[in-house]
């Protein structure tokens, strides 16, 4: 953009202004339209003077500050343990006895590791 304070001011026809106004949903009286034409010509000059060409891969100007992942984990609701089926006392003992060897089995190891990694 040239450093000259004199800004080129584009012209706008009444029809073009009416189109812009109807798209914006504005209903103005003739005096207000005349004021807006005055201002819009200045703004259009500023927009035209602004550098628009940028590589597509450039970052957008907006930044969203999301909480870091660690705090997201902390704020997660606790996982409710699955409801256990009601069993009679004898059946419970039997079930425990059967379950014990499984905990020591090789299959359980990867699950433990996975839990630590969370």
């Amino acid at each position: 953009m040239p450093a000259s304070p004199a800004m080129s001011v584009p012209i706008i026809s009444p029809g073009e202004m009416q189109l812009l106004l109807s798209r914006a949903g504005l209903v103005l009286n003739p005096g207000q339209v005349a004021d807006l034409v005055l201002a819009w010509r200045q703004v259009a000059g500023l927009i035209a003077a602004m550098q628009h060409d940028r590589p597509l891969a450039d970052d957008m100007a907006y930044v969203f500050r999301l909480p870091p992942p660690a705090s997201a984990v902390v704020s997660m609701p606790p996982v409710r343990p699955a409801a256990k089926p009601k069993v009679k006392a004898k059946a419970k003992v039997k079930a425990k006895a059967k379950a014990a060897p499984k905990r020591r089995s090789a299959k359980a190891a990867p699950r433990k590791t996975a839990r630590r990694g969370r």
Partner: protein
Amino acid sequence: MTGHTPPFLTIAEASRLIATKRLSPVELVKELLARIETKDPQLNAFLLVTERHALAAARAAERAVMAGRHTPLLGIPVAYKDIYETAGVRTTAQSRILADNVPKQDAETVRRLHAAGAVMLGKLATHEFAIGGPAFDLPWPPARNPWDTRRFTGGSSSGSGAAVAAWLALGALGSDTGGSIRLPAAYCGIAGMKPTPGLVSRRGVIPLAPSLDTAGPMAWTAQDCAILLDALAGHDPADPASVPGPQISYAAAIAAPLRGLRVGLLRRFYEHDVPASPEMLQMMSRAAATLRSLGCRVEDATLPSVQEYNAVGRVIISSESYALHEATLKQRLSDYSRVFRVRVLAGALIRAADYIAAQRRRTDLIAAAAKTFERFDVLVTAPTAGTPPLLTEQRPDDGFARPLLTTVANVAAVPSMVVCGGFTPAGLPLGVEIMGPAWSDATVLRVGHHFEQAMGTRRRRPEL
């Protein structure tokens, strides 16, 4: 406590006298209320004087002093631009749209000042919703410049500039989106600080363009701005842009001498981009010589043109301000002032692609400023082309047609302050603008403080 109030006290001076029980906060407030009553009709700086609140707060401050409490702002009378929400006290933004608006809560900045013991005198004039210019079709007249009441105060913190210069308040809050603290500071011959974005909370300050809005202090001296900033700065989780800034005392930091500081003079800004008057050019030469005499290394510096910063700033301000006011504009268009309509309605016609282009170009301009600050601790420029114009010379489309030197710091997202650099032979003030890299607010204030003292401009007050 003595009933005698010396004239034209600064915040620092009044604070010392109050702490040593040689000045009564109640007497000080009474003195200022009387002065507002007699002088403000010439200036229109106040939209509302909260006399009862002020006296009650001053009595509370006096009791605290007598109980042995002391903070730098205890019993200090201040006033707020009328876009700062004040609990139970009308906040209008100088607009018919909010003529009956009584907020339930204080703005965070107001809360902080009150917690520090400051006393609210009232609400100050602004341009409608902090944009536009002096308007004569609103229920309140525009503020007038105390150095010459035919002249413009600068804006939009117009009442803040006038009230501080005329000693109707010892300090004030303003807001700055394109220069609205620093322009009135320049035209009214006071100090005004636009801090680094995020340093001071904007919660409860009626927004204009949130990408660029900054809240900050205005006072007679840079030292007083530093005292106010000590109370204002701090993280506010309720303002998404607020960040924890440096944990320092700005008032303490300004005392360090300037020897060895690298000062960049943005000569092209005021010699070419926005050509300054001969008086302003002379003053800038004196300013550079003064900074050298203070031990600074002064060299020419460059940034992209003022026009580039202004194009980006104006497109963002128009787009965002229109977006904020669209619904109300469509229902109550004629209730806004003409100058507001001229400056904001154009935002309805800006395409989304152009707004995004402005935001993207801003990142380049921020980067350009940051690059220049690798070589300099501060950059110095004229904040205006010259002296305050006559009120009748203001055009509704001025904000677009004439680029503002001050908008550079808003777009570049850096701290910037204006201090008084001198006076023309006609007795009108001329400002100097000092910018620093992000979070160098203390350095900017320090340069302003030493510069003011060296130039000796703080001994002269407007005669009303």
